[in-house]
């Protein structure tokens, strides 16, 4: 049971169905733990390493040559803002996984700048995740993760790693950056899994 706050009514924007504790923003706030890395498109690479240690690498040109999709999705940040109907362009993770021989259950995502996050492989496949390089019709800006970020909109947005450079697949789960600092291991906004133990 929550405690009623004396005198509080709230603004109640024409609130659509947002996950619990979230509010709507029209801006695109930024959450990062350090300075924004600046990676040139031509220097960018993405490597998937499977549980046997085999690597498969894609360059920026390889990425553009793959079939792209234009997902329009709602995104939810653990710092409480949600943004609806954001439109992106990128390549489904399913396309990358076709090239990889794996039965692994877990992935660690690695980024330029040292950021990591972890998620189950099943949350990356079957049309649930993309590597995106355009946002609202423009190249993805560095503050928002350009040249390429992961997009996994059904989880809190810290799982959608910016400046992504690789996936490491394994049979064991290894917590990433925020996950070792008290944030929830899975991060489902609809179950309000913000912090460890939620």
């Amino acid at each position, binding site marked *: 049971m*929550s*405690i*009623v*706050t*004396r*005198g*509080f*009514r*709230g*603004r*109640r924007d024409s609130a659509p169905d947002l996950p619990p*504790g979230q*509010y709507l*923003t029209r*801006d*695109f*706030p*930024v*959450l*990062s*733990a*350090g*300075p*924004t*890395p600046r990676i040139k498109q031509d220097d960018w690479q993405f490597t998937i390493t499977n549980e046997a240690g085999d690597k498969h690498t894609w360059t920026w040109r390889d990425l553009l040559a793959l079939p792209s999709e234009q997902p329009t999705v709602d995104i939810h940040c653990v*710092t*409480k803002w949600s943004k609806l109907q954001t439109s992106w362009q990128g390549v489904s993770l399913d396309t990358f996984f076709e090239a990889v021989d794996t039965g692994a259950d877990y992935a660690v995502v690695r980024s330029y*700048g*040292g950021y990591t996050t972890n998620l189950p492989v099943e949350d990356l496949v079957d049309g649930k995740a993309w590597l995106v390089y355009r946002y609202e019709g423009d190249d993805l800006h560095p*503050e928002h993760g350009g040249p390429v970020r992961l997009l996994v909109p059904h989880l809190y947005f810290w799982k959608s790693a910016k400046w992504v450079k690789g996936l490491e697949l394994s049979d064991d789960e290894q917590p990433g*950056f*925020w996950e*070792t*600092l*008290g944030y929830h291991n899975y991060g489902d906004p609809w179950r309000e899994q*913000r*912090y*460890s*133990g*939620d």
Partner: protein
Amino acid sequence: MVLRWLPGKVADIRVETPTSRTIVFDVPDWAGHLAGQHIDVRLTAEDGYSVQRSYSLAAPADEDRIEILVQKVTDGEVSPFLVDDLLPDDVIELRGPIGGWFTWEPSLGKPVSLVAGGSGIVPLMAMIRARTQAGSDAGFKLLYSVRGPADEYYAEELGKHGIEVTTIYTRSESPSGRPPGRIRPEDLSVLWPADAGARTYVCGPTGFVEAAAQALVDQGHDPGTIRTERFGPSGG
């Protein structure tokens, strides 16, 4: 570890500037926290409608007593309520401490540069107060950007901690004679240089943090020594 919602009883409210308040809560069984961490606050209306926002802890805990500083954001849903309507003895729900990255502990053993934009001073103030409380002699240098003298939080107290403080104003001339304007790369020269082995904490609105962190990297600071926290989409 489960972060439960706890009742926070308002013990004191202090006017910091015309549009901001320090709010002191008594939270039974508060578990303690590190300088730089924050809490989540939850407000609930009669009919169950509820909202949450994050606020940095402004000082080390004094047993069960914690404090935050809230700046009123025009048209905001939560901050105008906290600044204008909350009264002593009101009880609101909060939970924490949250965030294990943007933190300072006396054991760090390095000089520290602090860069604050507007209410971004709050977690850095917690670090400054924690340093004094611990009797640490870590070399702290603070660069603090605010609109003008009327928007300077903790103005009196900042001079009393024995650290170097440089204040710059975005909308009027600074005490040093600097012309008005947002943070510029040359402003950062009052901080520890890139080769001093310092850690730098930058906190404020997103645009401010982006500008300051990028300028530090351009000046040769190792990105791994710079920790950032971004408060909001826009503003001072």
